[in-house]
């Protein structure tokens, strides 16, 4: 019995150390984004001190909020080895539909009207998410194809509903605009609200069984099914959450921009996915975190703002965003190769 115990203990001790190594690697990855962010801010503010002015901080945080909120839903979907390309279209439809509810709510107190607008927007988003989720899990169609199709269909519905018209800012109540304008010492309240939502999302993904299940499904779908994880239900939930979040983001978009036509948010899905990937979520699922994805969004919009403040021609922004995606996935690949090599070395050392 005593002879067997070291042999029993060895693999489990090894596993603990292995877990810690992986944990450290992913912490370093998140730390890398924060470090890049810090360097960027320091360098830019030396070149152009205006960068740290309250007004500039306010603008950057305001620009990040909607993007960061969208990365939360997208990260959940991508972690489960799926993708949601329809978020930009859902955002556009929700922005228009919720914006136009105010026209039907004359005489209703604005507080109630805003609440109704949010419920309508989230409802529209959830409905889109249900369609995406059902087609992916029940129809067993790859989500890349499903959401590519719904990207078109939802945008088309948006165009049909709007026709030639648009929502103009004057039809919206002033307090609706205040949602994205009001701030506390140049930190928008909207940003704080989004940060809280992302915090809840992060806690869910870290500590709840259904959140962990998404990681399991993403790293090995077959194994996840074999151990009895209800994959279909979990993935369906992720899509509904992503849709609802995109719906809420649409209402915020309406509050930020006021005037809405059928192009609102078109092409935004690629920016969202870019932020998620820059934030260290693997495009084929199983690893990454929603906090990382939100930091990716912050890094992306900070870089764009830094370039603008630093006097770099705005024509460069898109090219740099593209280069950042490539750098991020290359770094992730190198980390995972190093990690695999380190684990293999350790395993061979333990076996000898």
């Amino acid at each position, binding site marked *: 019995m005593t002879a067997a115990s070291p042999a029993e203990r060895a693999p489990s001790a090894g596993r603990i150390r292995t877990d810690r190594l992986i944990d450290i690697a992913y912490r370093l990855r998140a730390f890398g984004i924060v470090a890049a962010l810090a360097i960027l801010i320091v360098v830019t503010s030396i070149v152009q001190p205006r960068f740290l002015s309250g007004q500039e901080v306010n603008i950057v945080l305001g620009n990040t909020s909607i993007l960061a909120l969208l990365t939360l839903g997208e990260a959940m979907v991508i972690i489960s080895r799926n*993708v949601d390309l329809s978020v930009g279209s859902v955002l556009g439809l929700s922005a228009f539909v919720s914006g136009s509810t105010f026209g039907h709510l004359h005489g209703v107190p604005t507080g109630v009207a805003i609440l109704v607008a949010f419920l309508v927007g989230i409802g529209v988003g959830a409905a889109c998410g249900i369609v995406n989720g059902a*087609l992916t899990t*029940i*129809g*067993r*169609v*790859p989500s*890349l*194809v*499903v959401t*590519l*199709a*719904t*990207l*078109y*269909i939802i*945008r*088309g*519905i948006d*165009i*049909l509903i709007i*026709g030639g018209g648009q929502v103009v800012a004057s039809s919206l109540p002033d307090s609706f605009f205040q949602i994205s304008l009001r701030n506390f010492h140049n930190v928008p309240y909207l940003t704080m609200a989004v940060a809280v939502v992302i915090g809840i999302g992060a806690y869910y993904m870290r500590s709840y069984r259904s959140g962990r299940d998404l990681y399991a499904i993403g790293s090995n779908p077959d194994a996840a099914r074999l151990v009895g994880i209800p994959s279909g239900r979990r993935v369906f939930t992720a899509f509904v959450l992503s849709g609802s979040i995109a719906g809420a983001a649409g209402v915020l978009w309406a509050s930020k921009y006021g005037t809405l036509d*059928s192009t609102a948010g078109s*092409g935004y899905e*690629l920016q969202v*996915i*870019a932020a998620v*990937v820059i934030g260290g979520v693997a*495009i*084929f699922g199983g690893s990454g975190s929603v906090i990382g994805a939100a930091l990716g969004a912050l890094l992306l919009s900070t870089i764009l703002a830094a370039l603008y403040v630093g006097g770099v*021609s705005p*024509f*460069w*922004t*898109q*090219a*740099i*965003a*593209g*280069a950042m*995606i*490539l750098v991020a*996935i*290359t770094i992730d*690949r190198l980390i995972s190769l190093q990690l695999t090599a380190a684990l293999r070395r350790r395993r061979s050392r333990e076996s000898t």
Partner: protein
Amino acid sequence: MNRRELHERLRPTLRWEAGLVVALVAIVLLGSLASDKFLTKGNLFYLCLSIGELAIMTLPLTLIIITGEIDLSVASILGLCSAMLGYLVLHGWSLGWAFLVVMALGVAAGLFNGVLVTRLGLPSLAVTIGTLTLYRGLAVVILGPNIVSTFPQRYTNIGVNPVGNSFLSWSVVFFLVLAVIFGVVLQLTPFGRSLFVIGQNKDAALYAGIRVKRVKLLLFVVSGFICAFAGILYTFRLSTAVQDNGLGLELNVVAIVLLGGVSIFGGKGSILGVVLAVAVYAALQNALFLTSFPQRAFGIVTGCLLLVSVLVPNAGSFVRRARAAWRRREARNTPAVEAN
């Protein structure tokens, strides 16, 4: 036996392509019922013009998707090459040299995609989302707010004049010639057959001695080359180079390829199916254009076509699964009834 084997192998693909033919005939019939302009020479020429470059870009993408990869940067390469052509012409280059540089740029763009995917082992979906943004961004950098429309008419005529006395545009003729070449390579050469093996089982392909990485690299380079060519045609058709030429076309290209029966998982598909899908797409778009359907909402149709094309092959297995589940439930219930 041999014939039956052949029959068995062809059946699933042929059924898909037969479906596309039926759809095409139905669209043409409905289109000509809806508007007597539909089958006129002028309209068919317009139809050809509107689809040409899109059609050309579907060919290399078909091969890439068959090997289980994807290239979302095709429309950005088109845009980049169009912008470069405009830039060079603006700076007084002769068109001959400009063509050469633009084609080389397309090859370089494809090579960059291919190197990242095959040599660094990065997922092509993520890589080409990155280069989609990068190449589009470079087009913006190269051309800025400039609009170049000083191309010699001898060339821009290629973009807007029909071939001889027919209703075909030059872009569609190029597409048909390329389609034959791609079809022959895919169906009849060992190289083409190896693409299917790679798509179905990469490891098996590797053990069978196929140089998987080199093949994929080559396909990305071909894709860059063809997209550069499409970029030149696109520029001549519009007689203008602007920074956002071809913006957002990549999703249409993917949609057409998948509608052509190419499996997004790789290993399945044919050039014939994709050519038919191009025809279905173009005819439908054109027919709806002649009715009062808002042109910009055509995305609804594209999206529905895409969904139908992936849901229909799954329908059989769905029914089978549902029936099996029902039977299981029956079986579970039956002993309980007997116990009573």
